[in-house]
């Protein structure tokens, strides 16, 4: 009761603007969710209030605020340390799992839509290598199908003649693309949930915003590479895989 009266009659003087601005910068730099930021803001401002209690003169208050600001140190470093500590307070497993799910979704989208011809060239080389090691077997055929599914995806998106691909490849493609879209959509949705629930980090924000933009540009054909190039590389892969398989067979005999 006494405390309540004291609060009503002797309202604390307002926090100096410089202190409030410092705290605002720290909480902004933390880039955490609203709830966390508000918690840190209240606690930090409370510290200033307590430290300035009893100091009446403007000059004395200004000097005390400067001393406190020096004591708090660099706002970026402070924000990073607080953010790290607060993140550990949260049961971080859901956030990290969701982040991984999002990363997985983005990866599936990249494969489904076809981000870069060079990537698929490397995938093809990998498939050839697997075929070389495993020889003419189901595993090698599966690896080849995966590789060709990626090429078929590019063929369908970038207007290369689909008649040049086998039915098996098309079946694999359809299954893959469908799952890729579903995984990507799920990953993006989870990424948004992570952002809203736990606050955002620059990397999550970049992925959440850029991936749909990039996917849209790809599907609209604005980032379409040369279809001719795709054709040539596809044809080469058709020639190279059987040759490698034959060579492997010959060596093993």
């Amino acid at each position: 009761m006494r405390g309540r009266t004291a609060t009503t009659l002797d309202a604390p003087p307002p926090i100096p603007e410089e202190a409030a601005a410092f705290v605002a910068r720290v909480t902004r730099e933390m880039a955490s969710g609203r709830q966390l930021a508000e918690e840190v803001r209240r606690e930090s401002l409370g510290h200033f209030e307590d430290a300035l209690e009893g100091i009446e003169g403007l000059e004395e208050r200004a000097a005390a605020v400067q001393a406190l600001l020096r004591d708090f140190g660099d706002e970026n470093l402070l924000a990073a340390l607080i953010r790290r500590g607060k993140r550990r307070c949260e049961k971080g497993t859901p956030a990290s799992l969701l982040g991984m799910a999002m990363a997985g979704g983005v990866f599936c989208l990249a494969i489904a839509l076809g981000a870069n011809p060079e990537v698929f060239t490397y995938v093809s080389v990998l498939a050839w290598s697997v075929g070389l090691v495993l020889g003419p077997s189901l595993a090698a055929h599966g690896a080849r199908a995966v590789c060709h599914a990626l090429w078929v995806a590019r063929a369908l998106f970038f207007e290369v003649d689909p008649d040049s691909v086998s039915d098996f490849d098309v079946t694999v493609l359809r299954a893959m693309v469908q799952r890729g879209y579903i995984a990507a959509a799920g990953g993006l949705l989870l990424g948004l949930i992570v952002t809203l629930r736990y606050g955002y980090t620059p990397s999550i924000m970049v992925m959440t915003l850029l991936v749909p933009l990039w996917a849209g540009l790809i599907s609209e054909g604005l980032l379409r590479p040369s279809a001719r190039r795709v054709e040539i590389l596809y044809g080469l892969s058709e020639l190279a895989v059987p040759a490698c398989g034959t060579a492997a067979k010959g060596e093993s005999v």
Partner: protein
Amino acid sequence: MKFERELLKGVAPMAVLEVLTREPMYGYQLSSILAESSGEILNLGRGSLYPLLYNLEAKGYVKAKERAADSGRKRRYYSITDRGRKQLAESRKQWAKLREGIDLLFGDTPQKPALGRGGLA
């Protein structure tokens, strides 16, 4: 005297936990009492205090709850947990051992431990 940052960093968690065994405290109160109780030697910077408290909270050594202070203002009070008490006991043991070793190294007479060894008081 200005201490090496890493030196202070090592003892700060133990010091904070020790102070919190007395009663729950909020940040400003804790830093004042810590400085006062240590003869102004352990003057934890504000930039270190709150990250440290959040770290201790994350590890489960302290828990925090908002309530009204004596002044009537709402403050976030930190109190030590059972886990924190165990950690403090362990830290004190380690600190006593470390101090013994350093004192021997520097040639200072080591303080006899409270729980005597070999029957010595």
